[in-house]
């Protein structure tokens, strides 16, 4: 009985089993989500579906990286396991004092460094620059203000005049003016508020993110968009939805007790339905205001 050999083999098996464990247990538990709406797209163990024009860049980078990591790990793992089996202590075997003179490790390290440089300069930086540097032209884009608060997303559309009404903390009133709109500002008259994010398909979107209280994070999994929403700052993000459907808006930064339920829905639809929706939401609001007067 050779104990070390058994242990060596056992270690290999255990490593493999552990790697496989999560993937073996496939079988999706799909189903409608708490809110009662069906969310579109196939969700499972991979990345969520991509519904934006540039999202595939991020996906590609993630995939290339993981193949690279896997290759490194496997190559390295084979050498590791080989050493464990080949050089186990046993009668008549003595370790060698002199260090191995192999240059392989040096080349491997240089290779790793070079590949990392490629990932960084060749992939990550251009993607980041492409998605963060140049906002789409204002005239061509849908413009939405996104206002986060514990624990809700508010969406503010400029209405037909294309200009947002002025807002300030001093005007805030939880009942009928949660975003602190200055009603005396003429630009505010046709502004539209919603708690669902509707966007027309195939048209760039600019979201201006602000927060009323603490830090939140605006996360659109299917758009590959994530951006912290920081009080005192106004941060724009942009993307172009290309697939119609009903998706989710998540909060990705711990923002208090109900952080987990700070969820909203996003509807990507054709121009016509978007226009109808905007009009209807606008009407409901006017109606409310009349009632209050």
């Amino acid at each position, binding site marked *: 009985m050779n104990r070390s050999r058994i242990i060596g083999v056992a270690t290999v098996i255990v490593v493999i089993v552990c790697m496989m464990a*999560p993937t073996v247990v496939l079988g999706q538990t799909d189903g409608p989500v708490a809110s009662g709406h069906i969310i579109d797209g196939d969700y499972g163990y991979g990345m969520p579906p991509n519904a934006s024009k540039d999202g595939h860049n991020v996906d590609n980078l993630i995939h290339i990286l993981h193949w690279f990591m896997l290759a490194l790990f496997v190559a390295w793992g084979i050498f590791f396991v080989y050493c464990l089996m080949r050089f186990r202590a046993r009668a008549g075997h003595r370790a060698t004092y002199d260090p191995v003179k192999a240059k392989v*490790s040096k080349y*491997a390290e240089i290779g790793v460094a070079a590949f990392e440089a490629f990932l*960084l300069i060749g992939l*990550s930086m251009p993607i980041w620059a492409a998605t963060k540097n140049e906002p789409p032209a204002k005239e061509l884009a849908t413009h939405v203000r996104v206002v986060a608060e514990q624990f809700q997303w508010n969406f503010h559309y400029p209405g037909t005049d294309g200009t947002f009404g002025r807002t300030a903390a001093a005007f805030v009133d939880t009942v009928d003016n*949660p975003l602190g709109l200055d009603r005396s500002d003429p630009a505010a008259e046709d502004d539209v508020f919603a708690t669902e994010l509707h966007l027309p398909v195939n048209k760039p979107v600019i979201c201006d993110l602000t927060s009323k209280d603490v830090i939140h994070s605006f996360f659109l999994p299917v758009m590959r968009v994530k951006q912290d929403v920081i009080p005192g700052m106004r941060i724009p993000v942009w993307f172009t939805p290309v697939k119609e459907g009903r998706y989710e808006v998540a909060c990705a930064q711990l*923002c208090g007790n109900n952080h*987990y339920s700070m969820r909203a829905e996003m509807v990507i639809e054709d121009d016509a339905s978007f226009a109808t929706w905007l009009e209807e939401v606008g009407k409901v609001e006017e109606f409310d205001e009349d009632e209050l007067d």
Partner: protein
Amino acid sequence: MSGDHHHEPSFIRKYVFSVDHKVIGIQYGVTALCFLFLGFCLIMMMRWQLAYPGETMPIIGNLFGEAAMPGGVMLPEFYNSLGAMHGTIMIFLGVVPLLVGAFGNYVMPLQIGAPDMAFPKLNMLSYWSYFLGGVVMLASFFVPGGAANSGWTSYPPLSDIATTGQTWWLFGMVCLITSSLLGSVNFIVTIVQLRVEGLTMFRLPFFVWAQLITSFLLLLAFPPLEAAGVLQLMDRLAGTSFFLPEGLVVSGVVQTQISGGGSPILWQHLFWFLAHPEVYVLILPAMGMVAEIISINTRKPLWGYRAMIYSTIFLGFMSFIVWAHHMFMTGMGTKISAFFATTTMIISIPSVVILTAMVISLYQGAIRFTVPMLFALAFLPMFAIGGLTGLPLGLPASDIHLHDTYYVIGHFHYVVAPGTIFAIFAGIYHWFPKITGRTLNKTLGYIHFAFSFIFINIIFMPMFWQGMAGVSRRLYDQTVYAHGDAVQSLTVISSWGAWMLGLAQIPFIINFFISIKAGKKVSDNPWEATTLEWSAPSPPPHGNFATVPVVYRGPYEYSVPGASSDYIPQHITTEA
């Protein structure tokens, strides 16, 4: 110098307020192990809520009262407290005190042949400051509103408006920081000044080098967090607005009482300026221990000893300029993010070098699969997984999708749990004979290893898939999201892994306590090792060495050609 050294010290002076580095090391070790276990218990409770959201927790669910778990169901605020305290306890009260306070304190002076630390009283003060910090943290569970619940990162404004527990957290942190500062001064002075004759810097065991660099990180990275803590205390207690902009509206109430003018981002800079070096504090001593154990158990000098040291120094230096890779999603400009992404890629190189060196050390060795060696070997692939998954996080473009998801949780747990914790287990099995004169039981050790290894992977491997799917961390119930609901089965697997890992610790705990009194007695140098600690009696007496040793050679003289035995201790003059 004064006359009190003739008296036999009282029990209290000897075991409670002791100034002997070995006693203090043991105090640190036992306290920190208890905290480690506590941190584990907290997470095991959280894993119930994650796997079975909203269901009554069996057995212990009703022990926590209405404010935390009404009807045995965990409230979100309690979940958040547990999460924040798990992170804090594991890092500041568990792992760092074990790596530095316990192993550093006990082993390092022995390895350099010193009779004690350079400042024994400071050492004692450092332990008691740590202890006080721990008590404050624990007590915070019982204040109204519960313990801190804004995450271990305590981002304001959330932490500024959080319940009283946050104030306690801050006071606790101040104690812990003080403890670390005192400790790090002591370590550096000891390592530089108190080495015995012949023990040049390049004859030091790698573990000592790791402790030296770690101490520098602690010394220079902690003060900014202390400053940040003071500022946050001012915000909470004196009503200042360091981290608060004007015009906040919290729960519909306009915050007119604050002046505004501060910045939430400021905290993040100060925090991560500490917390990134801090993660290397969690890994360097662990690497040090693994390197020692690998060299001893391969009967072969470490490959690339000098390269490892230079890498460690470089790593320590670089760790101060990568902090903002935790902040890519705060809306920083392209240039700044490119800078931090570049430094992050650069800092991964020394880790690759160190790890490669350790693996190549196995080549042409004669590997003994002892229990500590198994843990040390397991450390390598586990750290590799953790380290490699750091790369997608370090590239801003891929971090867009992965930031603040379970992918991050998976990444760093692979480095700290199967990584650092395994290194700690390796260290415990390895130095236990030095500390007690007895070994831990081997069979129980193998059982502990095998099950820990399996279950810890079952906990953390699924997290990468969860993160890819887009599930956020710090999420009380992921099934509210479609993408979370779809991978809920992974959460269940992970939770069962965690509870099984808990069971897998039972053989260890039994082994630990029984072996202290009844373990097999062993010689002073049971592993046939070369470094100085093994030349002292087990356990070493007050003052450590009967005669002050002199060092004649490097730390890893194993299998020297022509020598009669396969190891030559550092203090042996010539090969007879």
